[in-house]
């Protein structure tokens, strides 16, 4: 346990340093990324204002809060892209990963956690600009902040496992891009990334309840902007834990299959 703690500490440190190294490109990327929620924010707060102040239970200010917290959640749930696996295999990095006496997922979890921490620090000034420009309605309690803190890392883990498994599909097909795009589309519609799910038709909400996506976007956002009861907050964390454990289980199976495939063929 302490040994893993040590590995995580070292890798997070390296992640932080890498992010500092690439701060300029991180900022460019972040500004580009923030366009997406700003569009949603403007559209939905416009609609709310033109309908006497609220739509689907959200006031204009709450929409603003939703999408600004969105940018924070998005910053934390960026993980290793499935596209990267092809490169890992081709350049022999994958072999190097296998030779370390440690499951390779720890590397990605720790390294990206480091980059995320740095990324959030760099996000702060942009968040300040968004707050000043759009004026969110938000006043979280300490419980909500605490639950939010765990929830974004829950979102990080769930998304990490999902994208790792998508990436491992590289061992069977060279068209991972298409699979990943399908995943992103499903995520956009079913996670609360596009709009809060309560604005969606009922059947979409039922469907979303059976899928992991909403726990990677909507749950942490709602936790912080005060849309959930205390009971819902803790049930939500439990649901995230369930998806994390399920993800670990499924990942073991996929990983074992992928190792069998790799060790039969090499690269």
């Amino acid at each position: 346990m302490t040994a893993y703690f040590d590995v995580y500490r070292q890798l997070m440190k390296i992640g932080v340093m890498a992010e500092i190294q690439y701060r300029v490109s991180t900022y460019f990327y972040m500004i580009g990324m923030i366009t997406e929620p700003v569009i949603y924010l403007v559209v939905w707060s416009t609609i709310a204002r033109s309908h006497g102040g609220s739509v689907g239970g959200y006031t204009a200010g709450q929409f603003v809060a939703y999408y600004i917290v969105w940018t924070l959640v998005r910053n934390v749930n960026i993980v290793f892209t499935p596209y990267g696996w092809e490169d890992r295999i081709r350049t022999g990095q994958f072999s190097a990963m296998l030779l370390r006496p440690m499951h390779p997922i720890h590397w990605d979890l720790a390294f990206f956690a480091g980059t995320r921490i740095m990324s959030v620090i760099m996000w702060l000034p942009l968040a300040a600009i968004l707050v000043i420009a759009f004026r969110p309605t938000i006043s979280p309690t300490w419980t909500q902040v605490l639950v939010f803190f765990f929830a974004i890392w829950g979102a990080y883990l769930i998304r990490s496992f999902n994208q790792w498994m998508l990436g491992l599909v590289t061992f069977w097909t060279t068209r991972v891009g298409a699979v990943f795009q399908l995943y992103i589309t499903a995520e956009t519609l079913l996670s609360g990334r596009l709009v809060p799910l309560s604005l969606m038709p009922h059947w979409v909400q039922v469907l979303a309840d059976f899928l992991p996506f909403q726990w990677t976007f909507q749950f942490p956002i709602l936790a912080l902007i005060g849309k959930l009861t205390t009971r819902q907050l803790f049930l939500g964390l439990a649901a995230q834990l369930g998806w994390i454990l399920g993800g670990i289980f499924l990942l073991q199976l996929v990983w074992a299959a992928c190792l069998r495939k790799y060790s039969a063929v090499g690269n």
Partner: protein
Amino acid sequence: MHEIRLAWLFFRVGAMNELQYRVNFFLQLFQSVLAIGTGLVSLWLIFSHTSSLHGWNPAQLLIVMGVFTLMGGVIQTTIQPNMTQLIEDVQQGTFDYVLTKPADAQVLASIRRVEIWQSVDVLTGVIIVLIGVLRLQSQFGIGRAVTFLLMLVVGALLIYCFWMILTTLAFWVTSMWHLVELFAGVYNAGRYPVGIYPGWLRYGLTVVVPVAFAVTVPSEALTGRLDTKTVLGAVALSLILVTITRVFWSFGLRRYSGASA
């Protein structure tokens, strides 16, 4: 004219090259369908909660989405691949090969690459625009269509100039890569008419990044919101920007030749 023949030649060679990878057509089509599906869901969600967004009705917003897709296809097919190639060439010193060719360097640098499959978006964009027009329920004259086409050309030209000026900066600043990510993000703002954005953002999307001219203005032309003054202004602006781009490019080229000598 020599340059136009050259452009056509490059286009043909590029297209033939890419035609070898037919699978990419289906991948692109798949991607295009997913993007349009998401866009349609967004519109449907919006209009299930309201009847008009900042004065635009469903058919009109459908047109905006079509123009956005169409123009995105044009950018991805020609402008962006050429500009990223140029940045790479300047960085690695391979730009010399372009300079040694007996043709205008700016033209050559702007037409060398064609990502033909990206033009799937042009096609789907046109289809969406047509569907939007059919559902407009208002009289639709030849005048509007001509203005629309003119504004499309002006929009593409302005986007090209915007990219070209930024790319020319590569002669001074070496790492211009992030621009692609940044632009791809900001261009998304064009999904909706820029009028819905708050003043400062609208201003930025018009003057700093010409998304307004690329998508909103042509859509306004098609939905009959454009007055003659704006049309003339846009044309004049494009001519001015083309000239500025040309001057800036020559300036950058002198700097490049000086530095590598």
